[in-house]
């Protein structure tokens, strides 16, 4: 029986610059960039040399640890640059796009008849596999694993995030194909969280267990859904996907082509006209950033939402997993007596001369200032107010810091990924880097236990 998920603990961060429900066309990007840092833990092995011609959907490199897992080009063109860093580690791949796009075609898969092996092989070959993420460890799923269940959250609560009810409208056919296909990869269920009372493109689909989710952020994080429905135990594998990636997978099943185009929300207080753009993965952010206009000189471009995204630049590129680009002011300025004067223009979880509790629906224009210095953990009980999982957040963070494997396991590190700690990081009075701590903890755990 489907369970409803009602979250009480949490905090909605209302920011200025929500995207209007308008889709504009972005200028076609000349160069498309694949950023290897999007694929955590993947050691790439190149299939092409610099200067090679490549079709859209054609493999460029594969995962050294699992050669069948291929990563494909989003567009057709010439592989113009392989940028390498220290010890010749590949950082980015740049593809100069052709004017006339050609796409590598695979045989479409009839998801109702295909076996799980066929679907797995198709996803690996078509370049769709990296969309499937695995918990524990927050890495790309291992194709030989059999997951306990697949979780997808179609209820988005992150600040300024793209509204998938808008971006995925009319994509029901693709979504259905992707869900039906993925369902064959697990003997368990596909769980999808849908916002209570929302007009979701998922509500007309079938072949999964739907859960009505309500409550403040992080109710929309897939980690919250998993924890409330079927928490992960040691040794189990759970796969997660983002709704917007299902469209690409579904389209590949139906047409045999890898089409990396998606609706991207350009948001944030620095954007003059926040709205949606139809963009391909890897496109240069400036191709749509400046057509919306920026109203400040000193801004930060974030690939993703403001809580979990990665830092980028105007000449950076749209990340593999992102459907949001946030632009907010940099906060590299001092504030006179900022620590004791009453604060009206910032969000605070407390009421210590901070007044955001008076106006819970006000939209704030927050910048990247830390509003204080890094300190040891002092205050207790605050994280618990915004952390709905059945886990002790402070204790788990400390276990990760002193690298006690037993404690990390027992306190539930298998169940979380860094984004689950994005809100505790936001409210942290000691300004500790929670997501980095969890990431390092996960990497250590994976290295030691696997």
């Amino acid at each position, binding site marked *: 029986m489907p369970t409803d998920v009602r979250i009480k603990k949490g905090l909605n961060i209302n920011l200025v610059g929500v995207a209007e429900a308008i889709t504009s066309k972005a200028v076609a990007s000349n160069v498309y960039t694949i950023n290897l840092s999007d694929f955590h833990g993947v050691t790439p092995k190149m299939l092409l040399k610099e200067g090679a011609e490549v079709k859209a959907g054609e493999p460029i490199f594969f995962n050294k640890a699992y050669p069948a897992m291929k990563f494909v080009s989003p567009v057709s063109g010439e592989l113009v640059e392989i940028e390498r860093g220290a010890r010749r580690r590949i950082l980015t791949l740049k593809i100069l796009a052709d004017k006339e796009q050609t796409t590598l075609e695979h045989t479409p898969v009839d998801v109702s008849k295909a076996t799980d092996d066929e679907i797995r092989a198709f996803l690996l070959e078509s370049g769709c596999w990296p969309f499937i993420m695995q918990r524990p460890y927050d890495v790309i799923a291992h194709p030989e694993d059999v997951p306990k269940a697949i979780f997808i959250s179609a209820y988005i609560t992150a600040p300024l995030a793209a509204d998938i009810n808008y971006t995925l409208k009319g994509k029901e056919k693709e979504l259905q194909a992707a869900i039906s296909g993925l369902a064959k990869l697990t003997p368990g269920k596909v769980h999808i969280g849908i916002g209570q009372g929302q007009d979701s493109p998922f509500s007309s689909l079938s072949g999964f267990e739907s859960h009505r989710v309500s409550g403040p952020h992080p109710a929309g994080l897939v980690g919250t859904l998993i924890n409330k429905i079927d928490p992960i135990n040691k040794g189990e*594998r759970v796969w997660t996907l983002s709704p917007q990636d299902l469209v690409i997978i579904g389209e590949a099943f139906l047409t045999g082509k890898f089409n990396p185009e998606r609706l991207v929300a350009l948001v944030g207080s620095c954007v003059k006209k926040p709205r949606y753009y139809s963009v391909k993965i890897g496109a240069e952010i400036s191709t749509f950033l400046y057509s919306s206009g920026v109203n400040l000189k000193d801004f930060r471009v974030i690939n993703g939402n403001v809580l979990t995204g990665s830092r980028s630049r105007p000449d950076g590129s749209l990340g593999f997993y992102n459907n949001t680009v946030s632009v907010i002011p940099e906060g590299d300025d001092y504030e006179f007596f900022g620590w004791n004067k009453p604060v009206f223009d910032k*969000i605070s979880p407390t009421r210590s001369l901070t007044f955001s509790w008076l106006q819970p629906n006000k939209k704030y224009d927050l910048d990247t200032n*830390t509003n204080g210095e890094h300190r040891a953990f002092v205050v207790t009980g605050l994280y618990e107010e915004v952390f709905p999982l059945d886990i002790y957040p402070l204790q788990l963070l400390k276990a990760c810091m002193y690298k006690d494997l037993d404690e990390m396991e027992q306190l539930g590190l298998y169940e979380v990924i*860094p984004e689950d700690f994005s809100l505790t990081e936001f409210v942290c*009075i000691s300004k500790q880097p929670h997501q980095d701590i969890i990431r390092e903890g996960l990497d250590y755990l994976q290295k030691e236990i696997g």
Partner: protein
Amino acid sequence: MSEKRLTIKKRLHIIKHRLRGNKMAPAFSAFHTFLFTPDETTHSGSHIRSADDLKRTMNMVIMALIPVLLFSFFNTGYQHFAAIDAASGTPRVVSLWENFLTWENFWLGFKLVMPLVIISYGVGLLVEFIFAVIKGHEVEEGYLVTGMLVPLIVPIDTPLWMLAVAVVFGVVIGKEVFGGTGMNILNPALTIRAFLFFAYPTWMSGDKVWVHGAVARTGTPDAISGETILGSLAQNNAYDYSTADMFFGFIPGSVGETSAFLILLGGLFLIFSKIASWRIMVSAVLGALAMGLIFNGVVDMGWIGEGSSFYSLMNFEFWKHLIVGGLAFGIVYMATDPVTGSQTNRGKWFYGFLIGFLSVMIRVFNPAYPEGVFLAILLMNVFAPTIDHYVVRGNVNRRLKRMKAATIYPKITDGKSEELKAETV
């Protein structure tokens, strides 16, 4: 005005960069961040952060202590003059406007309390700065609250050199050896208090030290009493203070501990601003009431007679324990210290309850010194990690139990993984 401010800001910014890597950088940074919140931006993780930092949090506690400090000025003076009147045979009846809120009281209190505050902050912050410079870390805010608490929990006539020695001991042994703010096991302010109590017991207990001048006048014709209510009870003597006196704080005691009313207001302020844990405060009050009721019950059952040395304290109405002595102050400002207290919400209930419970117990049974709050809190500081351990264990056990039903599917391996190697370039 704004232009001048801008130049100060720029100048400080330049000095900050010039001092980078220098040993004195933490000391400068302490002043700099006091004036300006720094220009630090987020590097990873969440790109935005909430408005609160540790300075703001600590500042809230200090604000909650200011009324108590102001009250202590008046009460110090009032108790001194009232004791003189009482010794000369004309006991005073307190009246807020006529004989309490007077300049005479305030000035005497100010002259006596401020040196304690200055010594506490001066010596404590000096030690903090020295450690910050030696160890190369930032000067942390913990002492801002400790420094305010210390003068409020000592007897008014505590010699300043004694206080200075105790502060050095408390900051070094109570905090810095563990790694500074956030790492300490014992509440630093109470460590200082405990050091004073055990090193100089004659200055910290007895029937003289609680009113200014009582010690100095001992043995002279002008001798006055400096006894607290709990002290009188411990001697099975009567006391002549009304319940209202006790609640509003017109009674002798440590500098800032007397006014349960203002402490209550401070506590409500801290709960409202979400700085201090209401769980600890509520459960500590419940614990104190429970122990008080048990003692009242023992007396009611006739298990101890009036001859017992514990009779008066045990017979003291259970709820009045909350408004005399340091219990209220301890519960609101000391037990709620997040670093040394229990860190889990469930643990806080046990932690707080035991503090209240043990405080009243020690208060009644300690023959040498009828007060137990600081000992109870220090004891529970030591046990807080144990409490947390068992609370967290509950969560861990739930997880281990769940693990027995884990559904782990075997991997599918079909040897596909080799075929691509030849194409590698």
